[in-house]
């Protein structure tokens, strides 16, 4: 009994030693602090994209809230199911790097496509209005309004 007690007290003193040598303030050591900054930036970016992506379906013209939610949910489930198979086969660092890279490529593609689409839309609009106002092929204002509706319909059919 005494031996057991002695072992326990020995263990306790060892634990106390470990606890005193490892303080929670170790996070302010240079090595850990740099890792923490890097991790925080990666995590901040991830959460910011998560917040922004919720608005994207609305921005590309899906006004139906049920379809919007269903799309988000299905893609999310699909992503988690896929990562279930990949997480232990591929390195965490690689997953992190490639996820960031692909997100960058996808968002860059969307931004570039959107700017091209805007240029096309404004060019088309300018050309049509020139035709309406300068050549006076369509004299009554009702026709001009119809043309605007036509342009808007055309715009909604283009990929954003």
């Amino acid at each position, binding site marked *: 009994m005494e031996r057991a007690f002695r072992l326990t007290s020995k263990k306790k003193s060892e634990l106390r030693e470990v606890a005193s040598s490892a303080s929670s303030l170790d996070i302010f050591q240079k090595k850990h602090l740099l890792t923490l900054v890097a991790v925080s*930036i*990666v995590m901040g970016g*991830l*959460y910011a994209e998560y917040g*922004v992506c919720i608005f994207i379906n609305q921005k590309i013209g899906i006004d139906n809230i049920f379809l919007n939610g269903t799309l988000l949910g299905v893609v999310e489930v699909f992503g988690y199911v896929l990562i279930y198979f990949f997480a232990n086969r591929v*390195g965490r660092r690689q997953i992190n790097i490639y996820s960031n890279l692909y997100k960058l490529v996808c968002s860059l593609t969307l931004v570039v496509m959107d700017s091209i689409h805007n240029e096309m839309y404004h060019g088309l609009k300018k050309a049509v209005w020139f035709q309406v106002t300068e050549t006076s092929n369509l004299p009554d204002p009702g026709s001009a309004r119809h043309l605007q509706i036509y342009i808007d319909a055309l715009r909604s059919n283009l990929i954003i």
Partner: protein
Amino acid sequence: MIKLFICFQYGTIFNYVSELFPTHIRGMALGISVLIGRVITSLSSYMIFVTDRLHLHPLATAMLTSLLALPFSYLLRETKDQKMSN
């Protein structure tokens, strides 16, 4: 696709952060990084507002954050099949 890769990263980032730090500061490190992430999430609606004012696509924000996070992802070490510190 963006959402898919966000889920990919979201599924692994918590394990990855846990493995990067020794046990006695693990909780604090994870807590601080998640706190910063949540604060940035609360600012994301303002990011949409700012991109609207600048006549940019809202995904320009996602592009910038990915661009910023990419070099920092390179700096972090691999933890798969490595012995964990303490």
